[in-house]
């Protein structure tokens, strides 16, 4: 193998590693959004949850010294934002998209404001599991550093799919999302179900934020998120509201996001910004390529009906 080949192999490994690292926030936010949308509501505010979660997680980790407490704090902030979203949306004639955008701006602004004192200090980070400590290839070693949160998310995806199919609660969420009339005829509390689904979805998005600040890229700054929370919404559509496909899609997007840095690491610097745009370009291409009536027919009925 000549040096060139090794370089490209390293790029490949870095993209794989990046897929889990860059993809984890996508995964949590998209699972959260999937849960919320299954109940018949769209929460565009998850970008706000993500950033608030990142800030709160970092702050709590710094204050208490425990990154896991940080993760829970991040989830809790997301939960509260989800609660506010659901509470506003169940008022008559309130539109969930508008509320979502407002909460996104609120969450981002609040996080920047409250996070000012957190830019300097360095909080304890989440630890990773080194799966490749046997190897002397540094690229491979860093690619196979897997964070527990990614594992949790990767297990959560099939668990959520199972939950939707096999539990009473999962069926209730789907019924509410499919048809108001059917849900009412069954005596389900539509607003209650949506409230819980939105709160749980918000929790997951918050946890995704903690991953950003407590693991990768790590630290707290105002440029920490680059719109992952919004892209995750597109990702849910691409995944056709299927949690397992959310996992695949997140890995795909994560890999695309890791492409720029990976190329830079082997010295390909021309077009750096272009490669950084890969996830966004990918979003557009995939949305167009996969848009068909099939996508619409998988859409929760109450969303498709409007």
């Amino acid at each position, binding site marked *: 193998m000549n040096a060139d080949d090794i370089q490209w192999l390293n790029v490949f490994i870095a993209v794989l590693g990046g897929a889990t690292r860059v993809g984890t926030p996508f995964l949590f936010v998209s699972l959260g959004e999937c849960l919320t949308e299954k109940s018949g509501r769209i929460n565009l505010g998850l970008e706000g949850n993500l950033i608030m979660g990142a800030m709160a997680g970092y702050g709590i980790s710094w204050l208490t010294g425990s990154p896991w407490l940080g993760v829970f704090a991040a989830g809790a902030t997301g939960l509260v934002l989800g609660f506010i979203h659901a509470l506003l949306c169940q008022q008559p004639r309130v539109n969930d998209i508008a509320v979502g955008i407002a909460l996104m701006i609120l969450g981002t602004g609040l996080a920047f404001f409250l996070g000012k004192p957190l830019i300097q200090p360095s909080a304890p980070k989440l630890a990773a599991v080194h799966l490749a400590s046997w190897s002397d290839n540094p690229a491979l070693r860093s690619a196979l550093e897997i964070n527990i949160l990614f594992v949790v998310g990767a297990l959560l995806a099939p668990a959520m799919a199972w939950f939707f*199919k*096999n*539990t*009473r*609660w999962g*069926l209730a969420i*789907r*019924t509410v999302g*499919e*048809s108001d*009339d*059917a849900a*009412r*005829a*069954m*005596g*389900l509390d539509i607003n209650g179900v949506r409230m819980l689904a939105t709160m749980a979805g918000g929790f997951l998005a918050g946890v995704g934020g903690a991953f950003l600040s407590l693991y990768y890229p790590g630290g707290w700054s105002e440029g920490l998120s680059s719109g992952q929370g919004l892209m995750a919404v597109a990702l849910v559509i691409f995944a056709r509201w299927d949690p397992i496909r959310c996992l695949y899609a997140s890995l795909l997007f994560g890999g695309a996001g890791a492409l720029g840095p990976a190329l830079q690491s082997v010295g390909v610097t021309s077009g750096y910004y272009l490669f950084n745009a890969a996830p966004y370009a990918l979003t557009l291409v995939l949305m167009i390529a996969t848009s068909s009536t099939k996508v619409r*027919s*998988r859409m*929760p*009925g109450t969303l498709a009906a409007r």
Partner: protein
Amino acid sequence: MTGLALEAINVSKRFGDLQALDRVSLKLKKGGIHALLGENGAGKSTLVKCIVGFYTPDEGEVLLGEHQQLISNPRDAHDLGIGMVYQHFTLVPNMTVLENLVLARPRLPSIIDWNKERMAIAERMKGMPFQLPLDAPVNHLAAGEKQKLEIIKQLLLDVKVLILDEPTSVLTPDEADEVLGQIKDMARRTGLAVLMITHKFREVVLYADDVTVLRRGRYVGSERVGDVSVEKMSEMMVGREFSGTALAREPAADQGVKLAIDALTIEDDSGLPAVSNLSLTVKGGEIVGIAGVSGNGQRELVEALAGQRPTTGGEIRVMGERYRGERQELLRHRFHCLPEEPLRNASVSRMSVAENLGFRCFDRPPHSIGGFLRRRAINAYAQRLIAEFKVSPANTAIPIGNLSGGNVQRAILARELWDQPNVLVVANPCFGLDFTAVAEIHARLMAARNAGAAVLLISEDLDEIIELADRIDVISDGRLVYETTPQAADPIVIGHHMAGHAGEPHAH
């Protein structure tokens, strides 16, 4: 088994300005079928929705057995053993038949064992009047199949009081007999009390024990079915004697073929052939009837004709020109169409009655000028239509989804029959209409024919087809399998072909 199962006392309900129910009372006995009659918009659906807690009545109470019960939402009704089949289906479209059946059960276990549920339901399904594929997604079922599913769903729940809001509107008479016969049997055997809303006197006479009549939200009276004649019942419904006379069939001048379908093939949502190699022609001044059991390709055929579904083979010609269902063509040929389930397939339920009625003409003067809608003109137009077709309430500003089932049908028919259609495709036009409205719509279809329109009438009501059509085709499994004329029509032979038994001795 006697005794009262359920009693509603002085129930009132108001929607805005409209008093939909005004102190209505009703007594339901155990072990029998009680029919609830009334014109479209009389308040029948509203009354039963108040009983099951879907609506909260403004006043009045519901007694169950001897005790007063507070039923404040459908879950309470479930728990008390009251089941209801709604007039507009309440199935979950993106779920399978099995999931819908399981979902309906109160007190589901937290974790559902699908294998066990499937076996249990398949077992009990064997004793049901009809079978359904458990794994089919509900949005692929035709209207008749959905209706059967709704009924099975309630029967599987072992309810003590069963409320049926027009349960047979999309079933064939044979199927209806089977269903109602079984239900009556169950009532006699188990003491089940049944409250059935219907517009078909035949069903009242054959299956009901008692009948209650409502008129414009008021209680008119209750009788033993054996003690009243059909004439008396219809008089109670409309408040005067009914003098409906069918419009005569005029010998129409030969106008040439207006609608020609040639070797048409259409796929259903899952890509399987729904209509195969179907050819037919309709001349001006002629009604061609297509009889068939729902789910044999009628829905797809109508959707293709309305431009809502692509075809995969063959062609449609209108006035000799190739037709693709585009808006320009619809307007140019005055091609009008009424699909089944119009609330879902031909209207936007949250838009107002005026907007829905304007769909056909909103982009032409005088309803819009220079691309701007003229609300007042559209409103005036809608007012004319609903006055002409007696849509009630005569308010064009409310969402069309708030109209009673029969009034939605009337409103959409008004839109499609107005303005002298040249080619008219109608599917189950009298679904859910009361008898005065049926007579009226039949007369209008006949008038359109006499005026030279080519009418394709797709209906599951064989009597309707025999009454109206000039030629009759039978559709089964997406193919036209039999052709006859109303003079030569033998319902038994047609029934055999509808059921797909073409090789039987009755066949030609």
